[in-house]
């Protein structure tokens, strides 16, 4: 007998207050991302550089065994802060991060706007902050999987392969740099994705926007730089700005000849714009004045 035939039945349990009310939103977002076409392929492809760099760390410790393969290119396998920066700020990894945002992040808010589900969320004991944290943490999960986790794994394996702590003694700040940069780049991409996702009800349009803004800003930088040879044009490019700030995190010479904090300001501007737009766009009801 179904409940319908029995009539309405009460639930005997007790509703409880969650410490982190956003967790169901995050887990749902992650589950839905894995249901998307090509997502598993993209996420596994994104992990390929991590495997290559990990192999590189192994080879660097067994360099004598692989001497015939490298002939004079030993500096390529020198594991130092630049090695970490090359991985974390590399063109391929940043591009794959953007691809993940396109597939898993574009619909985070735009789908809710299109299908009027914001009012269902806000009819629950959820604040705007909880909702946004839940959505942002979907991105955080995937991006930290590609940045923080490999970064820390590299350090651990470097120590394991070396069999001593000399590496950590030489660069004691490196774990903090890895954590700091990973959080920074993840935070930026969260703001970037949620901002664009809240601008339209059309997920495809948002996907195109996420991809195009990233790519076009870099193409524009290339165009201006080739014509005017002024490195300050790098401020136009999201990728160049991330790499510039990355250089500071890893205590390296900036990639472009201007202060790193200019890039930081540009990226923070995205964060502020995102906060303002999200505060306006994300609400339980559309108020038409």
């Amino acid at each position, binding site marked *: 007998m*179904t*409940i*319908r035939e029995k*009539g*309405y*039945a*009460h*639930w005997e*349990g007790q*509703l*409880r*207050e*969650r410490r982190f*009310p956003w967790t*169901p*939103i995050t887990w*749902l977002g992650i589950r*839905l991302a894995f*249901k*998307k076409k090509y997502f598993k392929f993209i996420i596994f492809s994104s992990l390929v550089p991590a495997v290559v760099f990990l192999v590189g760390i192994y080879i660097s410790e067994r360099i004598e065994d692989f001497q015939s393969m490298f002939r004079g290119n030993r500096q390529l396998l020198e594991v130092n802060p630049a090695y970490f920066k090359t991985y974390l700020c590399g063109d391929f990894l940043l591009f794959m991060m953007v691809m993940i945002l396109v597939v898993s992040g574009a*619909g985070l808010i735009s*789908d*809710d706007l299109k*299908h*009027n*589900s914001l*009012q*269902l*969320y*806000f*009819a*629950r*004991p*959820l*604040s705007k902050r909880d909702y946004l944290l839940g959505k942002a943490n979907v991105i955080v999960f995937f991006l930290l999987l590609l940045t923080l986790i490999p970064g820390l794994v590299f350090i651990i394996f470097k120590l394991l392969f070396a069999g001593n702590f000399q590496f950590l003694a030489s660069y004691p700040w490196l774990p903090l740099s890895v954590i700091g940069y990973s959080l920074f780049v993840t935070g930026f991409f969260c703001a970037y994705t949620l901002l664009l996702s809240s601008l339209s009800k059309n997920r495809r349009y948002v996907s195109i926007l996420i991809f195009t803004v990233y790519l076009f800003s870099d193409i524009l930088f290339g165009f201006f730089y080739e014509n005017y040879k002024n490195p300050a044009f790098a401020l136009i490019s999201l990728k160049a700005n991330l790499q510039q700030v990355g250089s500071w995190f890893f205590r390296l010479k900036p990639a472009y000849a201007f202060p790193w904090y200019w890039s930081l300001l540009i990226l923070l501007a995205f964060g502020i714009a995102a906060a303002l737009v999200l505060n306006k766009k994300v*609400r*339980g*009801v559309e*108020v*038409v*004045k």
Partner: protein
Amino acid sequence: MIAEISDLHFSYGHIKALDGISLSLAEGAIGLLGPNGAGKSTLLRILLGFLAPQRGQGRVLGYDIRLEQPRIRRHVGYMPEDDCLIPGMDAVTFTAHFGELSGMPRQEAMKRAHDVLFYVGLGESRYRLLETYSAGMKQRLKLAQAIVHDPKLLFLDEPTSNLDPQGRKEILELIQDISSKKDIQVLISSHILPDIELVCSEVVILNKGRLAAQGKLSELRELNYLLYEIRVKGEGEGFISRMRALGSRVEETEDKLLRVHVPAELDIREIFRAAEEEKCQVRHFVRSQTSLEDLFARVVGVD
């Protein structure tokens, strides 16, 4: 008492949506009525905490509408008017998700989702993608997500809109069944007056952001006016004009039957006096049962 509000004000820019509304909602099924722009949805949204009132105060289930919104939402179920879904999900995951967000443990939410989906008649299609649902199924789904956490108070915004007659009947049966439980209170906002008449024992009528009428349906019918069905022979136009001059509202049906809404304070003999003076014979005079539609039209001031 499920809700008490006093002197509630809310404006969208220069437009006053609520203008000093004070009311107390008793237990049971209550209908919230009013023409478009009367402030029904704004009132629901304020009670749910979507909007903060600019003036006034209130309590829902004993919780302050300004300070204790999360507590209110934990114990309230809300079925919005618009279609709402999350693409890529099936009904079980969707319903369980909102149960979890209300504070149910994950396993319990999943179990309860199955139960309520069977209850609303979506048992067989609970694993189908929501995008493939018909309008009626989406309506049932909205009801399922509103009751999954077993709320104490249910807000239903136009629950039967976009439904065919059979679907409407079934949803109304479900609402009647839910509201028959003494510990679940239901507040229904609807334009479909027969639905309210069928399900609710009490109504609140809003007009232009103000409270136009409130009370038990049976009492309101008695208190506000009396309805008579009259058939006259002779110059009907003159009689109708006289009755209107006496403060009555007169409707004429196709078969020349007059439905006369008479102010409660008017002496019935005045009707016969008017007929005599207009040289009409009263051939038919019956006190009629007033409908909610009549009450609504009179209170709101439309035909």
